[in-house]
């Protein structure tokens, strides 16, 4: 494990096509550790994600992938080590980060439209009353409404954004949530299993959507994934969280049969298709069988 980690712990900033790569990394963890309830989730984590990169966080269940996202957000404080996010300590860049938490599905009876949920991404955290009708009367209101419409169109949700959000499908909800995360024009997106609970065509299309946005606007994307296959062709870097630590590197080096088999402690094969794409076979815990430890109920 140790020698493998050192072999793979390469700074991912030198991985190939990262648009708008600047000198300062978007995320930098040095010797970081997180403890929850007296238990060390992971420690000695070094991590660097360059600006504009599309990076996957992979690993078996319960190793602290979501915890890593929350550490970047600053919701969970580090027990040791240092971290900077967009040049500041975690938690101080809230408006520049779009966050999509793990598995939200809206109550079918919730009487709020998709467009209302997206709109909350702009100013839901402000105190005071939104002026009724203000959105059409004032320039700033018009501008906000235009931004909401723009981002809904970007994710292709225009046709159902006016329906109550509990009544659209899981894939449609996920697109609206991506829109919500994007509407504040973030420099970074943190997506916690955005593809889970989607069917295969929707996994492919949402993954394509996210990578397209990342490439076009130079947004750094950190995406937690259970199944690497839908996103493997878009990745600039991979972070593997396993057994109390994490390693990172370019996908070609981390996504190999040996590395994955050792991390998951089960035989895994990485195959290449004729068009050069990678396929990971034998990965444990397909989304359909896994139990969500974070909310405590099976689905």
């Amino acid at each position, binding site marked *: 494990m140790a020698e493998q980690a050192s072999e793979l712990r390469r700074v991912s900033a030198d991985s190939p096509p990262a648009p708008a790569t600047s000198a300062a990394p978007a995320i930098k963890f040095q010797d970081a550790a997180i403890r929850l309830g007296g238990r060390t989730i992971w420690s000695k984590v070094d991590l660097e994600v360059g600006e504009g990169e599309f990076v996957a966080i992979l690993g078996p269940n319960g190793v602290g992938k979501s915890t890593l996202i929350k550490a970047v*957000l600053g*919701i969970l404080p580090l027990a040791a080590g240092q971290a900077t996010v967009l040049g500041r300590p975690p938690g101080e860049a*809230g*408006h520049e*980060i779009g*966050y*999509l*938490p793990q598995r*939200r599905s*809206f*109550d079918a009876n*919730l*009487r*709020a*439209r998709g467009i*209302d*949920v997206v709109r*909350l*991404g702009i*100013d*839901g*955290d*402000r*105190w*005071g*009353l*939104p002026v*009724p009708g203000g959105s059409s009367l004032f320039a700033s209101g018009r501008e906000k409404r235009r931004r909401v419409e723009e981002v809904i169109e970007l994710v*292709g949700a225009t046709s159902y954004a006016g*329906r*109550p959000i509990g009544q659209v*499908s899981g*894939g*449609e909800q996920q*697109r609206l949530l991506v829109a*919500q*995360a994007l509407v504040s024009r973030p420099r970074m997106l943190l997506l916690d299993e955005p593809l889970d609970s989607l*069917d*295969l*065509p*929707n996994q*492919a*299309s*949402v993954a*394509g*959507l996210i990578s397209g946005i990342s490439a076009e606007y130079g947004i750094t994307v950190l995406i937690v994934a259970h199944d690497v296959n839908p996103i493997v062709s878009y990745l600039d870097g991979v972070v593997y969280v396993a057994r109390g630590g994490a390693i990172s590197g370019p996908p070609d080096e981390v996504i190999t049969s040996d590395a994955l088999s050792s991390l998951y402690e089960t035989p895994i094969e990485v195959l290449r298709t004729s068009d050069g794409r990678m396929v990971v076979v034998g990965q444990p815990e397909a989304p359909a069988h896994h139990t969500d430890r974070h*909310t*405590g*109920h099976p689905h």
Partner: protein
Amino acid sequence: MTVPPLLVARIDWNISADLHQMLTQHFMVNAFRAGTVVAVLAGAIGWFMILRHQSFAGHTLAVVSFPGAAGAIWLGLSATVGYFAGSIAAALVIAAVPRSSSGRARSEESAVIGTVQAFALALGVLFVSLYGGFLDGLTGLLFGTFLGISDVQVVVLAAVAGAVLVLLAIGARPLFFATVDADVAAARGVPVRALSVAFMLLLGCAAAEVSQITGALLVFALLVMPAAAAQQISPRPVVSFGLTILLAVAVTWLSLGVAYYSAYPVGFYVSTFGFTVYVLASGGRALADRLGTRHLRGALSPGNQSGPRPGVATA
């Protein structure tokens, strides 16, 4: 707790003369004033309560105002003090239970609320029997005293309602965010937990206030029915919020007017009209949904729903 003489005015069906005649009665003017204040407050708080699925908590806060008032009267204090003390104390107890979206915490919350409610009702019965037979007052506590409201009560009601509405307005947007999407709201720095506690306290104040007029058992007529009906009618937050206030005020005014010309209590009419509005609204929505889905089915081909991305195979 003065109960006015049971009086049944005769209606002439000359509406303007009838209205004029009704409003020459000072107790009717006060009933309209207090009713309007209470309707606006109950509508506004009720809208958030329905959205947050906290009707059971709201009901308990209202029921708890009964032992509060009964205890206050037994101790020789004003019933108003008792209403607020009871509801706010219960609000603090309920707010102490961590609220989470996960199923276990939610069922724990409802268990705590149910326990609080049962104990509160038992205390109410105890206070009533300790005071010794004030059966008229008991009816008033449970079913309201719409027609016996003093000028001072109107002023107190308006002041409390004003304060609660201002606080609600300040927190409205983050509260909506935290209700719809707690995780993202928390990540954006919205104090989700503090808002939840604050809302429970506002709900307690509102329930105490509304109880004084509608009685502890009929609070829901104004707290739940207009908001539930309005949210059935429109999923647009601003529209359904406005509609809630309108419905609450309309139901109150209509009930007061009808009750003035009939022998039956106001509480009955408030609940009946509220119920009617809700039945019509949910019936209308069911019908609209049905027509809507038929329309949609015709408009969309089956494979069209996975999104607009071309080149993605849809099953």
